[in-house]
């Protein structure tokens, strides 16, 4: 919080907290005269603030689709460049040693009641949240209709519910599933993926530099460590 450093306001989705906190540290180490200031909230909240005219230099939502609405605000035009991807997975509570679910498809686990009995509670992201849209997308394509559902405001809330045994299954991203060994992740057939891209919203060269950093091999390495796929 030094006043003589140039402040770079980066609005990043709360679900990207780990990645962008790492980026902040690395970028500030490379550029000692820059103070990266993260605004971490839900993608839609950030989007609303930017549409309201907030002084964001960089916007990094949890879904590339959310960039469209701010694109006329964006300084650089053209297709946004994806820096990472992620895919949806179904998680169940368990300590990873559970063998009777290995090889089971998610469809079988949930639909046929092989693991999760009838009346089971499934946690998912609410529609409108990127992971919620991905879940809707998946359910529509698979023709699935879930029973009791709890709609959570963000993907980590879904993870918390399943890991804590409060929900019997949940849809989260692979990266989230990897952070908690109290859940078992089942692969989804034709799992929906989500693409991450960012928009530079100011003319400041530093903002471009930060965007370049996110696309750098060093950042890619960090992203992979967190479980993202990097194209």
């Amino acid at each position, binding site marked *: 919080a030094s006043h003589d450093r140039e402040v770079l306001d980066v609005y990043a989705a709360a679900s990207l907290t780990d990645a962008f906190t790492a980026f902040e540290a690395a970028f500030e180490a490379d550029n000692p005269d820059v103070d990266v200031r993260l605004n971490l909230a839900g993608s*839609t909240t950030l989007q609303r603030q930017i549409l309201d005219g907030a002084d964001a230099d960089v916007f990094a939502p949890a879904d590339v689709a959310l960039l469209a609405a701010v694109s006329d605000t964006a300084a650089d035009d053209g297709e946004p460049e994806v820096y990472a991807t992620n895919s949806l997975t179904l998680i169940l509570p368990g300590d990873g040693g559970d063998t009777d679910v290995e090889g089971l498809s998610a469809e079988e686990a949930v639909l046929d009641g092989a693991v999760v009995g009838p009346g089971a509670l499934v*946690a998912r992201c609410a*529609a409108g949240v990127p992971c919620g849209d991905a879940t809707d997308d998946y359910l529509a394509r698979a023709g699935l209709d879930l029973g009791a559902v709890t709609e959570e*405001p963000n993907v980590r809330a879904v993870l918390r519910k399943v890991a804590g045994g*409060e929900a019997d299954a949940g849809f989260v991203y692979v990266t989230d599933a990897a952070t908690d060994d109290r859940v078992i992740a089942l692969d989804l057939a034709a799992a929906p993926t989500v693409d991450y891209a960012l928009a530079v919203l100011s003319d400041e060269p530093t903002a471009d530099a930060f965007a370049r950093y996110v696309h750098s091999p060093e950042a890619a390495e960090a992203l992979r460590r967190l479980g993202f796929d990097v194209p």
Partner: protein
Amino acid sequence: MVAAAGVTVLFIPLLALLLDAPWARLADLLLTPETVTAIRVSLVVSLSATVASVVIGVPTAFVLARHEFPGKSLVRTVVTVPLVLPPVVTGVALLSGFGRRGLLGSAFGVGLSNTTVGAVLAATLVAMPFLILSVEGALRSADPRLEQQAASLGAGPLARWWQISLPLARPAIVAGAVLAWARAMGEFGATITFAGNIEGVSRTLPLDVSIALLGDPDRALALSLLMLTIALGVLVALRDRWVPRR
């Protein structure tokens, strides 16, 4: 002067909200079975939480105001803690206590999480401190000599409490119950964390609003107007009972 300026400042967001509201589509947005269910759940949860707050909170406030006993500061702590804790954390605490794998849940094999009862519990925990603080303050500033008179007329502690102290504190109890109800009505974080966001079970209006805000802002605004209307209706209906007789 300051107050007038202040109130004006507060008036602006409300005005903006009303201007932004999707008046044309209001009926369409609100006349859905989901909304009706959410209203029902909201009323059931908030009113149950208010009743629970009054039943537990009024005696607690009385004990806190009038008696000294070991562990008093512990009780005070327990009942005021949820006032400052972010509601989500209260939800997490409830999970640790009453969740499926919580202290009690693992002991008895049942949890209250993801149930309507759980939603009531969450709302009660968050709302009751408002009632307790409001009522305790009134009891403290009540004239103890009236209770003395009642004693001298033969009324024991319980009768004095019920016939004298409580009626005299009625304005504060009503005000406290209104505060508690309002807080329960708007409760979001503890509920979604502990009771989930399940239609017909725990999806109250604020949960519906907050989630709708992510995907369907117009619906969120429409639901907000609905909440406002319900709340104002209740506040106006209660106004007379608020005014103490003297």
